[in-house]
């Protein structure tokens, strides 16, 4: 790597704009005059008017800028790593997790644990799944390693609760089936790149 960008220490070419400021008063009389003129200017009322106007806007014209937390929340970056979500397949509604156990293996604080079994449909069923949030350090490896984009980091950053168990079970993290249409595709760590299609070779098919 070239170090050009670090060696260029010429910062004088930027477009600084000088403010048109008065010189500070130097003599005692000059200072007295400045105090008197600032005191009796009507600028105080300009400020009061702005307040009054915004109050009117907020109260009568619906232009409130305050976020009503906890009833309202600001959107956060998709790369933020909060409490995990378990996503469902959009078509069938079945959970995406295939029980491969990679998240359990990669977890550096060893807080993911799962039980699997052979189910009636000859598939691998995740019979139990849990994350110990007392130990989770929200590193994001589980979401990154997940081959199915099944475990992802959600936007739920409030982790105060009476019990940690309240959000550590599979069902708690899983998208509720009635909110399937609201499920957002994950964009953070481990999501496929936007040019993924260009990077795959096609396998020949006989039919």
């Amino acid at each position, binding site marked *: 790597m070239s170090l050009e960008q670090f060696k260029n220490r010429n910062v004088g070419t930027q477009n600084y704009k000088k403010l048109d400021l008065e010189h500070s008063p130097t003599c005692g009389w000059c200072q007295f005059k400045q105090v008197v003129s600032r005191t009796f200017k009507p600028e105080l009322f300009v400020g009061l008017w702005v307040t009054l106007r915004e109050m009117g806007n907020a109260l009568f014209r619906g232009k409130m800028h305050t976020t009503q937390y906890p009833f309202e929340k600001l959107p956060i970056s998709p790369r933020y790593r909060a409490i995990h979500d378990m996503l469902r397949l959009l078509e069938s509604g079945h959970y995406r997790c295939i029980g491969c156990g990679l998240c359990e293996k990669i977890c550096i604080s060893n807080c993911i*644990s799962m039980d*699997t079994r052979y189910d009636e449909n000859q598939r691998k069923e995740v019979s139990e799944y849990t994350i110990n949030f007392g130990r989770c350090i929200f590193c994001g490896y589980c979401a990154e390693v997940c081959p199915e984009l099944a475990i992802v980091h959600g936007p739920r950053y409030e982790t105060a609760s009476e019990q940690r168990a309240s959000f550590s079970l599979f069902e708690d993290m899983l998208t509720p089936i009635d909110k399937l249409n609201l499920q957002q595709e994950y964009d953070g760590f481990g999501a496929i790149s936007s040019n993924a299609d260009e990077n795959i070779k096609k396998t*020949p098919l006989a*039919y």
Partner: protein
Amino acid sequence: MSEVQTVENMVSITIDGVEYKAKEGEYILNAARANDVFIPAICYLTRCSPTLACRICLVEADGKQVYSCNAKVKEGMEITVSTPDILAERRAMMEVYDVNHPLQCGVCDQSGECELQNYTLELQVDSQSYSIQDTKREASDWSSVLHYDPGLCIVCERCTTVCKDMIGDAAIKTTSRGGEALDKSWKDNMPKDAYAMWNKLQKSVIAPSNGTGSTDCSDCGECVAVCPVGALVSKDFVYTSNAWDLKKIPATCAHCSSGCQIYYETKPASIEDRTEKIFRVTNEWNYVSLCGAGRFAYDFENNIEGKDEVAFASAVEAFKQAKVIHFNSVITNEEALMLQTLKEKLGVKLINREARAFQRFLNFYTQASGNSLYTLDFKEVMQSDFVMSVGTSLRNDNPNARYAFNNVQKMNKGAGLYFHPVGDTLVPTFGKTVESFVHQAGHEEAALLLIIDLFADKDKLSDSVKEQLDRDALITTLGGDADKFNAAFDKMMKKKEKFSLMVGEDLYFHEKAENLAKLIAVLEASSEVSVAMIPPKTNSLGVALICDLDDEADGFTIGYNESGDFKLSALGDGDLDMPAMNQQEGTLTNMHKRVTPTNAAVDYHGYELNDIMREVAVAPKETIDWTEHLPTAKGFKAVEFDSLPNGYLNDGTENRGYVLETTSIEVEEVSIEKFDKSRGLEGEIAYRCNPQRQFNDFSDKAHQIFEGFGLYASPAKAETLGSKVEVTFDMGSITLDVIVDDRMEGNIVAVPDFKSAENIYELFAESRYQTVTIREV
């Protein structure tokens, strides 16, 4: 020892420009493996015949392409592992294997231990050139323990090979897949060997060889062990755990006297229950083959909450007033040594029926032959080319003895003689030159005399033996046809060099045990036949060497996993709990005359025998501190437990524990008693014999073992008996359900002894055969 190679039968070969030494007549692949040189290969199994299914082991030897798994090394041979042509072939083969292979690596039970995955990466397959329409293949259960998913199968035929060449069941075979035929154009457009391989692969799939959906076999699960992909999995294990989650604990199987190398694979039982649980048992399948008990009977641990101080105090009291300790052979050498120490310090008597019988027999043999131990181990039996068996139900007593008998037929172009009173339909199928004699119970001496007559140098025999050698009469006594056998025997003897004889429990529990032991000594002294003995139960050999056992005893009895006035038990039904074999460290002495270490796989929170020893006599800190004190006079070595290895080297050398030392003394000529034909048993006969996969209370406790406690009979006999019978012995009677064993033949019925609570040894007394009356109830 055959393991030591002399310089004469080594040849030098060159692999990729480096010179190596190899055993003469060895396959190139094995020679390379022994020298730590990597040649890719999927379908080859050490100790089995090459199948040539995968063809990936293609190498260039002296300028010619050969398959390294079936081409033998020659002096001065120059081998190149990879040429551009061979690499193109291998890559094409891997691409072909990947055609239509389901992309379920994420859920597959092989979970990263997959050879298909490994070789696909090794040969850098990053694109696919071939395609063909897939055939629908449904997963199914072959038996109570086997699960087969043909979709994942790459038809390497390792399962069918091991089943035929090692196990001897030949219960599975390749069959037609019903897929589309390959397009002819591929023949010209792809490497030759890859095309041939694909052509075969596309046509085949594995299925039970009896034509039904389920296998008729001994459920050993060796096919599961050798499967390179996730196609064959034990039914209980399917989708329960990834291989990488399991902790491998090297151990020794404690079900029979084979003492096979195993790994207990454990992980926490579930999310709620974090105690370690055994999920499966695996083995080094290239060098050792397990039986169904070894592989599936692993969950017999004694789960207890903690130390029961009250029970412990009463156990200490019981030991102080004990006159007798009654135990069995499922015990480590260390515990046997503790019991022997108790005998020396407190004067208690030690009762162990099966080890006592074996001990007596070994002593007779030592007195007659001068050798402290029998001659062969079972590895050496496997290298012989004429194998015989007397006095053991090969299929039930010891699976490894059976595997050796079968392997000799399949691999060494061998011949076999099988003498047993209970007819068996499996043994004759091991090879074309296997002759089996179904003789009268009690006529074991005739079998040994016939063997002496067939193999001995007559000049070396004493008159007392010579006068009994009337070949045709002996053959007739043993139930054979003299003319037919003599003709067959001439064929069997062609090109044979190494002769071995296996003898078993029938001879130890025999009225004429002494005479039989002498006959064995005579046979060894006068012929090229060497003898291997099958200790009756797990550690019978160790117990026989360590303990000074008694025949009869009265008084207050402590039973260790056996009945007694105070019962120590690892089965959870005693007065004081003891750890089971999978919860203990220690060593076992197996039939290969080897002292092998085993480790604890599962937690145990209670007291062990060493704690009692500390209270009533002397004891070091740990049980394994006894290991170095095992009696060196009996062939044991004074080595620490922690220094004992437990594994195999790349060339197949067994590097487990140590081998017992055999000493010899000078002996005088022995006199042989005359064989009395009239001692053969007549009438209704019961034989003390366990079903396959059942050896003791522990195998019975395991959830994947389904063979019940009942009266085993051949299909024809079972029909005459009804469904439930009362069997009356001289010493008492027992009521049993009749269970059909379709590999049994004849009228003798088998009564199992694996449940110690049933006291079967009492019923049979000092013999394995008893005349009984059977009545339907």
